[in-house]
C-alpha cells in the first residue's frame, strides 16, 4: 500500500514517463530515425495537452470541448512572435502560456456560469470563435495558415533545429507539466477542485466559493495547453487554424477517456495510444479513425475504466 502510493506520487510518475520517452528517443537517435524522433516530439506535445485536459476533466470535473483553442493560441504565439523576430524559447514559451491562459480565463469566466452539457457547448462555441478569428488573420496566413519563420532558439542556440533537440524539449516540458499538475492535484487547491467535482453545493455550504478555484484551474490548464501548441508549431514548422478545429478538441477528449480520466497519466497513455494508432493504421488507410473508433468503443465497453486500469488495475475511479 505504502509502496503503491509512493509510486503514484507526482514526482515518481513524471520521472517514469520522462524516462520512458527518453528511452524511446535514445533508440530512435541510435537508429538515426528522424521519423520516430519527430513522432516522439509530437507525441510528447500531444500528451502535454491531454494531461492538461485530464486535469480539467478528471480532477476538476470540467469537461471542456474547446481544448484545441488554447493549443492553437500557443501555436499562433510562436508564429506571430516569429514574424516580429522573436524566436527565443525563454520568451516564446512564457508568451504562449500567458496568451492561452488569458484566453482560457476570459472565456472561462463566462463558461463557468454554466454546468454540464451547457459547459461543454459553450467551451466548444468559444473554441469555434477562436478558430474563425485565426482564419481571418490574413497577415498570418488566414485560412491557409503559414510557415513559422523558423524553429525557436534556446538561449540563442539553434538546438531545436534537429528533431532530437525538439523532442528533448517536448519530453522535458511533459515531465514538468505532469509533475506540476500532479502537485496541484494533491494540494489543498486540488482537493477543493475534486470535492467540488463530487458535490459543488456541499463545498459551498462548507464555506468555499468554487468559482475562483475553477477559473484558476481553467487558466492553468489553458496555459499548459498553450505550451503544447508552441511545441506542435515548432514540430510542424507550420501554423494554421486547423490547430483549433473542433475535432482536435474531440480527439483530446478521446485521449483522456481512452487513457482514463482518473489519473493525469491517463492523458499520456491516451495520447501515445492515439498517436501510435494514427501512425500504424494511418499508413494503410485514410480511414484510420475507424480503427480508433473501434478501440474507443472497445474501451467504453470495458466499463469505461481506461487503459491504465486495464493494465495496472485499481479499486476505485
Amino acid at each position: 500500500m505504502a509502496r503503491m502510493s509512493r509510486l503514484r506520487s507526482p514526482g515518481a510518475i513524471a520521472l517514469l514517463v520522462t524516462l520512458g520517452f527518453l528511452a524511446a528517443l535514445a533508440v530512435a537517435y541510435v537508429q538515426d530515425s528522424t521519423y520516430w524522433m519527430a513522432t516522439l516530439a509530437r507525441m510528447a506535445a500531444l500528451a502535454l495537452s491531454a494531461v492538461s485536459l485530464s486535469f480539467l476533466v478528471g480532477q476538476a470535473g470540467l469537461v471542456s470541448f474547446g481544448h484545441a483553442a488554447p493549443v492553437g493560441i500557443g501555436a499562433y504565439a510562436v508564429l506571430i512572435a516569429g514574424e516580429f523576430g522573436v524566436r527565443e524559447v525563454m520568451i516564446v514559451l512564457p508568451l504562449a502560456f500567458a496568451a492561452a491562459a488569458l484566453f482560457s480565463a476570459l472565456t472561462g469566466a463566462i463558461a463557468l456560469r454554466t454546468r454540464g452539457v451547457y459547459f461543454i457547448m459553450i467551451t466548444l462555441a468559444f473554441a469555434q470563435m477562436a478558430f474563425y478569428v485565426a482564419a481571418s488573420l490574413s497577415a498570418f496566413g488566414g485560412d491557409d495558415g503559414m510557415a513559422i519563420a523558423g524553429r525557436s532558439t534556446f538561449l540563442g542556440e539553434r538546438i531545436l533545429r534537429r528533431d532530437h533537440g525538439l523532442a528533448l524539449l517536448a519530453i522535458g516540458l511533459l515531465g514538468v507539466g505532469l509533475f506540476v499538475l500532479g502537485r496541484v492535484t494533491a494540494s489543498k487547491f486540488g482537493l477543493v477542485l475534486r470535492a467540488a467535482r463530487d458535490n459543488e453545493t456541499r463545498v459551498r455550504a462548507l464555506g468555499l466559493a468554487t468559482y475562483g478555484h475553477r477559473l484558476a484551474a481553467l487558466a492553468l490548464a489553458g496555459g499548459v495547453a498553450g505550451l503544447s501548441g508552441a511545441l506542435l508549431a515548432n514540430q510542424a514548422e507550420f501554423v494554421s487554424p486547423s490547430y483549433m478545429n473542433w475535432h482536435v478538441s474531440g480527439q483530446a477528449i478521446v485521449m483522456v477517456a481512452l487513457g482514463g480520466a482518473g489519473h493525469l497519466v491517463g492523458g499520456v497513455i491516451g495520447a501515445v495510444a492515439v498517436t501510435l494508432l494514427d501512425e500504424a493504421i494511418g499508413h494503410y488507410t485514410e480511414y484510420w479513425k475507424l480503427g480508433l473508433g473501434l478501440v474507443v468503443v472497445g474501451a467504453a465497453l470495458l466499463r469505461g475504466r481506461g487503459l491504465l486500469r486495464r493494465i495496472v488495475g485499481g479499486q476505485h475511479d
Partner: protein
Amino acid sequence: MSAPLIALEGVEAGYGPAQVLFGVSFAVNAGEVVTLMGRNGMGKSTTLRTLFGLLPARAGRILINGADLTGAPPHRIASAGLGYVPEGRQIFPRLTVEENLVATASPGRGHGWTLARVYALFPRLEERRRNMGPELSGGEQQMLAIGRALMTNPDLLVLDEATEGLAPVIRADIWTALAALRAEGLAILVVDKNLEALLRLADRHVVMEAGRVTWTGSTAEVQADPSLITRYLEV
C-alpha cells in the same frame, strides 16, 4: 448583551409553488445547544437549507452574528461561522477520509480545530484515514461529516438528522461526541428524532409544526409538561 449567533426573523421559504415555511423565527446564542423538533415534513430540513442559503428566503431576515446575510450565497453564510452536517452525510465519495477533512477546512480561527483534534474526537477516522468515502460505514460517514464541519472552525455546528439510520452503539458514540463539543463551548443546532438524547444534550428546544414555530422552551419545561411531547412530537 451581544447579538445571537444566528437569528431567523419571520423567514418564509418553499419549493416552487409550495410554501413550506411560514414566518419562522428563533435564535441560537453563543455556547448554546438548541434542537429543532417536530414530526416529519414540518419544515425542519427546509429551515436549515434556508439558513444556509441553499434555498432562498422569500421573506424575513437571517442574521448571523448580527449581520444580515439574507440572500447571501451559501459559502458566505458558512464562512460567517456555520458548520453544516447535512442530512444523509453527503461526504465527498472520491476523496479519502483525510482529504474530506482537509478539502474545505479553514484552519486557524474559531475553536482552532485541527486534524489531530478531530482524530482525537473520532479515533475511528484516524484508523480509516486513507480509505475512500464509500468504504466507510454509515456511522463513520457521519463522524466524517461532523469532523469535516468542525474543520471549517464554525461558531455554530448545525446537524440535520444527526443519528438517522445508525446502529444504537454508533448513535451513542455520536451523542457522546456532541456532548464533548458542547462541553468545549461550541454552540450546536441539531435536528434528530431521538428525544431522550436531545433532552440530555440541549438547553433549549424549538418545536415546528406545519412550517411554523409552535413552541419554544427549555429542557426543564419539556420535562415538566409531558403533554407537549404527545401534542407535538408523537406520531
